[in-house]
């Protein structure tokens, strides 16, 4: 596990051709780790018949969004520590 609850992280803004589960509305955004989930197979490769290994850690990341907060489950390889 790379990130801790409460830590600020930034979601990669990179374009990704093909199946992935990081929604566009959080790409490039900064949020805070709300939960550290378990690790799961990578849907980006499983979607093309591969086994999805190695498993990647999943995090619930919270973003302020106007008058509310949005929590999105994001894989570790999409996150970087935010200053």
């Amino acid at each position: 596990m790379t990130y801790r609850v409460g830590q600020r992280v930034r979601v990669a803004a990179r374009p990704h051709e093909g199946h992935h589960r990081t929604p566009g509305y959080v790409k490039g955004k900064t949020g805070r780790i709300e939960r550290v989930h378990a690790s799961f197979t990578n849907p980006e490769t499983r979607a093309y018949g591969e086994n999805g290994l190695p498993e990647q850690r999943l995090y619930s990341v919270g973003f302020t969004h106007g008058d509310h907060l949005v929590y999105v489950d994001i894989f570790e390889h999409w996150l970087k520590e935010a200053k």
Partner: protein
Amino acid sequence: MHDRGGWSSDAPIDRSEHTLADWELLTDALVGALGRQGVMNVDELRRGIESMPPDEYERASYYERWLYSAETILTEKGLIAPGELDARLAG
């Protein structure tokens, strides 16, 4: 097209509901059985749905998208031949 969170919308939410038709239950169960058999996983299902041409994606009903995806993925894996389902329906 499938990534809907970033869109702006003030469209009202239609709260009417419908009981799933037999063919919809069947489609759901087919996909589930394919998953349990290790033939097609949920990520492939989603990828197949996402591969729909945008106008078809918008027009299709929920389980029509599942059917499209199943056919796409099964054809890709060589488990059904291209056009085999059409031929079955026509013949």
